[in-house]
């Protein structure tokens, strides 16, 4: 009979205190697992979504807000920028590719993005069904959109004004699904893509209807918009974009281009890399706090396992002495006690890691925003450190009782009876 089985049986003889200890460990490990998985996934998503974008140009305001709205589609845009100026920047020799974005509408909380073929090239998009949008009001939808909204190629839907709710539905034009994207693993999964003109037209109609009475003077120049171009045209003075995603032509641009934008125009340039780092350092404070909390719980668990083993050792002194008389060596007793501690904490760790994964999956599946969807069904290499920690706590908690068992004077214990 191995020390393993003896320890195992001994644990099972006291299921309640074993369960309590395992729960404590599991709770601590669970929190750490969630933190590990979530922060990993968030930073991965942040990087994944911004990896090919060197700079975002948008209206003045918070650079973080500009990044959040134009790359992660989370926050509201900072405002609009004149199409003319944006196109001038796009033609700058520093720029390899410029992707125009026109935001402002949503469908059931999913953002409708007016853009052009540069967007496809930037994110290397492919369609799984159908084709990319070509005419006005044709859309290509992300894989997640198709799944959650149950949309198929050929389906029609109405967009709504705003970015988050379904308040003012644009009933004048309906969008039609011309294609569905392959799952990309980035923000494109949750977007509805169309051309910029569709977004413009949607709002022209909208404003025409809503403000007919008070905006007669404006109505004039809005009038010719009904024949708006299907492609982004530079010559239209009044047209606006939300922002421009920029890819540099060469690393040299890093030094020159942002300053050019910030000083020579009325727009601002924000670097996704910088802002993501800033954002993550803000989240980091919360993560750190939770981490310390989890470590504290683990520490309490370690002490609890220690007290438990130490107390049970008092009761088991005689058992252990008997084992010595049956031929067990001191080393074997040491192993039996240590194994007990390690088994407790490792079982707790396994439970905690499983729990962490399940809880995160649960959180992920209940998340409102599809943009930063978290999943628990991922294994990280770093999780191995959780098991190392579990092992270390087990040894830490059991070492003193084990040394006691090793050193015990069996003659004294047996004579006491």
């Amino acid at each position: 009979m191995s020390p393993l089985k003896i320890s195992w049986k001994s644990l099972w003889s006291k299921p309640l205190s074993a369960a309590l200890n395992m729960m404590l460990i599991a709770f601590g490990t669970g929190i750490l697992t969630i933190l590990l998985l979530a922060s990993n996934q968030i930073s991965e998503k942040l990087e994944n979504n911004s990896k090919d974008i060197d700079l975002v140009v948008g209206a003045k305001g918070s650079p973080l807000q500009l990044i959040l709205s134009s790359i992660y589609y989370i926050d509201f845009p900072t405002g609009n920028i004149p199409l003319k100026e944006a196109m001038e920047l796009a033609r700058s020799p520093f720029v390899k590719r410029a992707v125009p974005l026109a935001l402002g509408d949503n469908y059931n909380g999913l953002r409708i993005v007016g853009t052009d073929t540069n967007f496809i090239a930037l994110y290397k998009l492919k369609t799984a069904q159908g084709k990319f949008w070509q005419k006005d009001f044709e859309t290509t939808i992300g894989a997640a959109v198709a799944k959650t909204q149950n949309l198929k190629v050929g389906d029609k839907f109405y967009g709504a004004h705003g970015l988050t709710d379904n308040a003012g539905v644009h009933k004048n034009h309906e969008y039609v699904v011309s294609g569905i994207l392959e799952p990309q693993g980035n923000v494109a999964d949750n977007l509805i893509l169309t051309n910029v003109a569709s977004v413009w037209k949607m709002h022209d109609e909208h404003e025409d209807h809503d403000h007919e009475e008070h905006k007669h003077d404006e109505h004039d120049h809005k009038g010719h918009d009904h024949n708006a171009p299907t492609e982004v045209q530079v010559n239209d003075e009044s047209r606006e974009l939300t922002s421009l995603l920029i890819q540099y032509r060469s690393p040299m641009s890093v030094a020159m281009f942002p300053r050019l934008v910030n000083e020579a125009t009325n727009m601002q340039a924000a670097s996704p890399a910088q802002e993501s780092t800033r954002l993550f350092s803000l989240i980091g404070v919360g993560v750190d706090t939770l981490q310390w909390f989890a470590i504290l719980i683990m520490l309490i668990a370690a002490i609890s396992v220690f007290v438990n083993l130490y107390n049970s050792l008092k009761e088991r002194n005689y058992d252990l002495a008997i084992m010595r008389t049956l031929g067990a060596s001191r080393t074997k007793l040491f192993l039996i006690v240590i194994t007990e501690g390690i088994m407790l904490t490792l079982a707790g760790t396994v439970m905690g890691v499983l729990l962490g994964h399940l809880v995160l999956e649960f959180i992920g599946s209940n998340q409102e925003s599809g943009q930063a969807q978290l999943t628990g069904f991922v294994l990280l290499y770093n999780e191995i450190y959780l098991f190392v920690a579990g092992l270390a706590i087990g040894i830490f908690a059991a070492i003193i009782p084990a040394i006691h068992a090793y050193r015990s004077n069996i003659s004294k214990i047996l004579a006491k009876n």
Partner: protein
Amino acid sequence: MISLKSVSHQYSGGLRIAFKDWQINNGDQWLLLGESGSGKTTLLHILTGILKPSAGEVQINDTSIYGLSSKALDQFRGRNIGIIFQRPHLIKSLSISDNLVLAQSLAGLPTDLNRVNEVLTSLGIADKKKAYPNELSQGQLQRVSIARAVINKPALLIADEPTSSLDDKNAAAVLELLLQQSGINQATLVVATHDKRVKDAFTHTYALS
């Protein structure tokens, strides 16, 4: 053959106790008589390799047991000496049969379930094999502890006050089982007691004063 030569032990309090030499031939059945506090348990512990005496030598079948390393002595004890305590002291978390298997494996011997069955049957408790210690009566537990002591066919079977907590009927039964088991397993038997009820069953007596 077991021999005790000029053994004495000094307690931590300073009290020194010397034991007269003792020679036990194989198969003998001895009674170790002495009042409480006369050093009976100390002598038993010395005899079983649990307590190293301050002076003197203990030999069991030509092995000077205190010349062995701690680990070798533990194993030697497991294989050659069976001990029955006043109380059964079985491992509560293990079933009866696992308690016996534990004795086999701690002595470094392979698991032999036939032997477990054989011993339990000869003690009349084969039906309790799967039970746990807390499900058995005191008398049944004492039988299991005898089974555990003889499972590895030890050369020396030592019982420390095996009858003192039992009534007359059970005391007689346990004594009979001890004599019978030492016979079946060809083990030398030493019973330490202050219980006058068991005196008549033995021809050899080692008395402590």
